[in-house]
């Protein structure tokens, strides 16, 4: 295992002994004699591993006292809190007949001596042909501008130098964006069918050069070549074909939408090839042009760009710019980028979100790599173990795993994991007989520091123990005994670690799963259909697999919620990321303004008594929270000025506490038997009842509008009628939310669900009547100058479903945008407010829709009721059902 014939990649990394590693867990090195290859027919060969100097700071799997296992569910004892920090954990007897698999000590590791050694180094002719330095691929040709710093690209497994690539500077990035902008003029007007042909030709070209592609990707990324060949390349082909068929029917299927423009794609260090394909395929298909930002591990992106040129893609449509500079330093201030698709770590995503606030570029984030696996006691445990391998101990997944195991299956699951862990083979990425490669020194450091921190917090670490100390490979690792409250347990689990938590009931599993900021992907393992489906429905995740892990399909949307960002790729959802409704002018673009984020809307400007009394006293007073009007916490009010500058009403001056209460009330209206769990028909009839109530008071509303806006009575009547029509229309749409069952080949079908966003905050535009905006979800709206006649309608909707807080817009916006428990926010106000909302959304990565200061014509069908609202008002979830037992 872990044979190397060269030194690992720089920098040399220290291997400190963990302070918390108990003596008894340190493992002596295996006998060197065991490393001779003794397969018949092959001469014994020395193993190429360096001598061991220090024992691993890793230990063995701790278990409770000896209890011969005899059937699942036979009253397992609680595993938490045992053996913590003690020098010698109580190890039960091991071996045949004890009901437990043999300890690792009994069988020396290195059982893979019958397997061939890693292959010799490969020099790729393609790399050699580029010379010592790879440039950027822009405008259909290689560019190597003078004066850019070279960055070295190394094979993470061997540390060998593969190539150098240049580091793009601001000027060059601007050039690339400019090239893409010019290419857009020819690319986006092309008929969809022509673009489909381009994509298919690219697929054909990739197929012709697939060996080069998989070799290069494996060498540069350190992932084993087999996964790239059997996983990534077929998926890339499928993606190109799937999106070609969308392009072919674009004029019919996507009428009413146009491409957003130039898309900047920022690649993650691992999985860069397939992540790039997930994003460029839909972008190119709908008519966008792309600038890809890759790092030293993304050499395959350059190759794809070169092959796209060979496939006849017009120059400038697909550009690849290399460099290691963080995107937040390059991208802001670049006019011309309409959309930034970022994939990478959570912190970098948040930094980019802040940096791009107010720039006008749409940002879609897919962050984080951790995944979740829930094993119930009705699961096929052996298959669940393979699920764990797919999710963490292989090169199929980018991140580590949080593993929740039901207590009654806990011990048996751990034995099986322990046995399986020993069979995982690590080695050079070009070795066809290994399971895992490596992801470079930075990933190694992340894993090691997590292990050390976990150990210092009382966790038990279990590793195979056969990895030599100076190895670049981080062994598959089990982390046991952390509680959710341990500081370490809140961090993202890095690859290739599995952190295990026991749970008692399915309800507890759900609470533990949804109680983290992660919202990416999860799998549920149970043979009971009722339980498996229920858990899958209730997990707050972008993708949930039942009895499988990591299945992918071009038609299945992949995305997330919470800290994973709200970007989607794949399926129709992936297409809409790169589309913009026709007829709505895009947001103005430009460098972000200087805005003091600490001061924006910090307090509401004081309102002094003006002496004039309001014209009508009919409007109710107070903030509308939890189904009733109540006094604002500020105990002050603000006048609503009518058309003639005179005061026509007073509204309550809401503040931070009102927002807090309103959000709490909205959350209370959410869970079952709340609004989201109601049958669609019931939601529709509630909206229709509201429409009826509005229509009974239409005359009064129209007159009030005249008073406030100074428009014609005829106009305001039209407006009220339109509001009523919108309410009815959205009520009808409750039934058709685009959810459906889709087939995904041999893997079985998946469900595309449209789920409620949760609590949605809406900051209303100036002068808009509330009924103009109505979406079939929980809504919370602050607005500064409007009026309402809610009192008699309040009883129509459940308390807390709609809460209205009035007051100073900037102040209320600040309160909402900084509220961590608001998962989505729509802002229609000033440019500054938009910038602030986008900046503040980095806190919990709430889904933000801000208008950037551009006013929206709510009375027009496309802008006020178009499909864009429907798309933004709900969240997609892909639920994979694996089936087949015949």
């Amino acid at each position: 295992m872990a044979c190397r014939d060269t030194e690992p990649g720089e920098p040399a990394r220290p291997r400190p002994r963990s302070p918390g590693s108990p003596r008894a867990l340190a493992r002596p090195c295996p006998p060197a004699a065991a490393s001779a290859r003794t397969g018949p027919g092959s001469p014994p060969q020395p193993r190429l591993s360096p001598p061991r100097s220090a024992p691993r700071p890793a230990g063995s799997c701790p278990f409770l006292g000896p209890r011969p296992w005899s059937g699942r569910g036979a009253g397992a004892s609680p595993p938490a809190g045992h053996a913590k920090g003690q020098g010698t954990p109580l190890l039960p007897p091991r071996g045949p007949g004890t009901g437990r698999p043999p300890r690792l000590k009994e069988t020396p590791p290195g059982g893979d001596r019958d397997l061939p050694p890693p292959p010799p180094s490969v020099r790729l002719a393609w790399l050699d042909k580029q010379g010592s330095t790879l440039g950027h691929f822009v405008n259909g040709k290689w560019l190597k501008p003078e004066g850019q710093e070279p960055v070295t690209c190394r094979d993470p497994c061997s540390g060998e130098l593969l190539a150098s690539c240049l580091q793009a500077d601001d000027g060059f990035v601007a050039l690339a964006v400019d090239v893409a902008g010019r290419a857009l003029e020819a690319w986006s007007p092309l008929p969809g069918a022509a673009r489909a042909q381009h994509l298919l030709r690219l697929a054909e070209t990739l197929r012709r050069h697939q060996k080069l592609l998989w070799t290069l990707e494996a060498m540069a990324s350190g992932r084993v070549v087999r996964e790239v060949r059997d996983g990534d390349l077929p998926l890339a082909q499928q993606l190109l074909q799937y999106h070609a068929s969308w392009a072919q029917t674009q004029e019919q299927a996507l009428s009413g939408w146009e491409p957003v423009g130039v898309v900047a794609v920022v690649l993650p260090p691992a999985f860069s090839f397939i992540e790039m394909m997930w994003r460029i395929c839909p972008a190119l298909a709908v008519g966008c042009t792309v600038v890809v930002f890759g790092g030293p591990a993304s050499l395959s992106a350059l190759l794809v760009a070169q092959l796209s040129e060979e496939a006849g893609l017009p120059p400038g449509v697909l550009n690849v710019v290399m460099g290691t500079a963080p995107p937040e330093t390059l991208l802001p201030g670049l006019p011309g980028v309409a959309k930034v698709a970022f994939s990478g770590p959570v912190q970098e995503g948040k930094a980019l979100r802040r940096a791009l606030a107010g720039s006008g570029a749409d940002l879609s984030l897919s962050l984080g790599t951790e995944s979740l696996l829930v094993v119930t006691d009705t699961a096929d445990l052996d298959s669940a173990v393979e699920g764990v391998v797919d999710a963490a101990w292989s090169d199929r997944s980018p991140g580590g795993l949080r593993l929740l195991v039901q207590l009654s299956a806990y011990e048996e699951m751990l034995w099986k994991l322990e046995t399986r862990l020993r069979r995982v083979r690590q080695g050079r990425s070009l070795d066809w007989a290994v399971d895992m490669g490596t992801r470079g020194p930075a990933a190694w450091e992340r894993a090691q520091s997590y292990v050390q921190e976990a150990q210092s917090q009382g966790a038990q670490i279990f590793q195979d123990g056969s990895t030599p100390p100076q190895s670049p490979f981080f062994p598959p690792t089990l982390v046991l005994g952390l509680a959710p409250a341990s500081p370490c347990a809140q961090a993202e689990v890095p690859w290739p670690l599995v952190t295990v938590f026991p749970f008692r009931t399915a309800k507890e599993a759900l609470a533990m799963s949804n109680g983290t900021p992660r919202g990416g992907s999860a799998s549920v393992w149970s043979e009971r259909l009722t339980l498996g489906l229920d858990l899958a429905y209730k997990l707050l995740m972008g993708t949930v697999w039942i009895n499988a892990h990591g299945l992918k399909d071009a038609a299945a949307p992949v995305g997330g919620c919470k800290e994973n960002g709200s970007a989607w790729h794949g399926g129709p959802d992936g297409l809409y990321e790169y589309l913009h409704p026709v007829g709505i002018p895009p947001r103005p673009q430009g460098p972000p303004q200087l805005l003091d984020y600490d001061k924006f809307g910090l307090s509401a400007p004081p309102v002094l008594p003006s002496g004039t009394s309001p014209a009508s006293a009919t409007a109710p007073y107070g903030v509308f929270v939890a189904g009733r009007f109540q006094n604002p916490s500020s105990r002050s009010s603000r006048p609503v000025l009518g058309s003639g500058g005179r005061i026509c009403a007073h509204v309550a001056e809401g503040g931070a506490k009102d927002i807090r209460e309103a959000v709490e009330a909205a959350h209370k209206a959410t869970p079952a038997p709340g609004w989201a769990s109601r049958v669609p028909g019931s939601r529709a009839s509630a909206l229709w009842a509201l429409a009826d109530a509005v229509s009974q008071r239409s005359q009064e509303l129209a007159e009030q509008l005249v008073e406030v806006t100074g428009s014609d009575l005829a106009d305001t009547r039209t407006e009220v009628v339109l509001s009523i029509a919108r309410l009815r229309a959205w009520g009808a749409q409750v039934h058709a939310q685009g959810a459906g069952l889709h087939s995904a080949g041999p893997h079985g079908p998946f469900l595309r669900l449209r789920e409620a966003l949760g609590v949605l905050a809406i900051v209303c535009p100036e002068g808009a009547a509330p009924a103009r905006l109505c979406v079939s979800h929980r809504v919370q709206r602050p607005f500064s100058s409007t009026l309402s006649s809610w009192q008699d309608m309040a009883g129509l909707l459940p308390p807390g479903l709609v809460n209205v807080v009035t007051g100073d817009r900037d102040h209320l916006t600040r309160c909402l945008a900084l509220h961590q428990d608001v998962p989505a926010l729509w802002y229609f106000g000033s440019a500054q407010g938009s910038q602030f909302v986008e900046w503040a959304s980095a806190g919990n990565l709430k889904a933000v829709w801000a208008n950037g200061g551009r006013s929206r014509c709510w009375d027009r069908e496309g802008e006020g009721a178009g499909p864009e609202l429907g798309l933004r008002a709900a969240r997609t979830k892909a639920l994979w059902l694996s089936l087949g037992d015949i």
Partner: protein
Amino acid sequence: MSAQNQEIAFDITWISNVQVNQPAVLRRAEQIQTRRTVKKDWQAAWLLKAVTFIDLTTLSGDDTSSNVRRLCYKAKYPIREDLLKALNMQDKGITTAAVCVYPARVSDAVKALKDAGCDIPVASVATGFPAGQTHLKTRLDEIRLAVEDGAKEIDVVINRSLVLAGQWKALYDEICEFRKACGDAHLKTILATGELGSLTNIYRASMVAMMAGSDFIKTSTGKETVNATFPVAIVMVRAIRDFYWKTGKKIGFKPAGGIRTAKDSLAWLSLIKEELGDDWLKPELFRIGASTLLSDIERQIYHHVTGRYAAYHDLPMA
């Protein structure tokens, strides 16, 4: 061969809570075939290893003493002598693991192997092979007669009707009877997995067969429409592993039927290595029931040694 397995008390809880998820097992089966690719010297070594696992089989209506004799000599000399010499393996005693025939041919095989001067065991199918649809008394007699003729291993077929009816205790009792009838001979229990209906049933039948004292569990007779497949094997070897953890007894595994190419045999070896470990990679615990596999392995060895693909007449027939 190792000491016999003895039956243990029937425990219904070992099979009642079993969950086998078929799509997940199918995915694992797909993966396991591609994850340990061995080439060159290692491939040759693995192939020679595979030869020593083969139960060289002939189970045809037209078997006579002459072709059984040919088969026995092929079992003794599975790979051409000069090829073995080129690999420096001529003195390692590479033979197939056993010769497997119908009960009526056991005495022919025993005699032929004695003439060839080797102690390769003769395995006999029994108990109304392949359907098992005869009376228990005749099935037991069949075993006893085969043992009297000199069979060292008995491949019995189970009564599928008991599995499909869920009569696990009755199945256990029947196999216990087979065990007794075998005497000193080893008992290999054929589950006929193609006729059991589900992977869960396959796991249960495996567990019952092991509790009843089988030394080996075997996938199929080779006469069903679906024979040895990787998903079935994964379920069976997981049952073997669970049984080992519970009892400390190592039970052997024998896939049979449909394994024809050298490449297949490598995948089977890697499956055993991955799911059970190196301990099981020996003839006492792993067999491959096959008739044509050996000639393909010999062709691959020929190619490895000479660099040329062999013509059919280059290699002696079985």
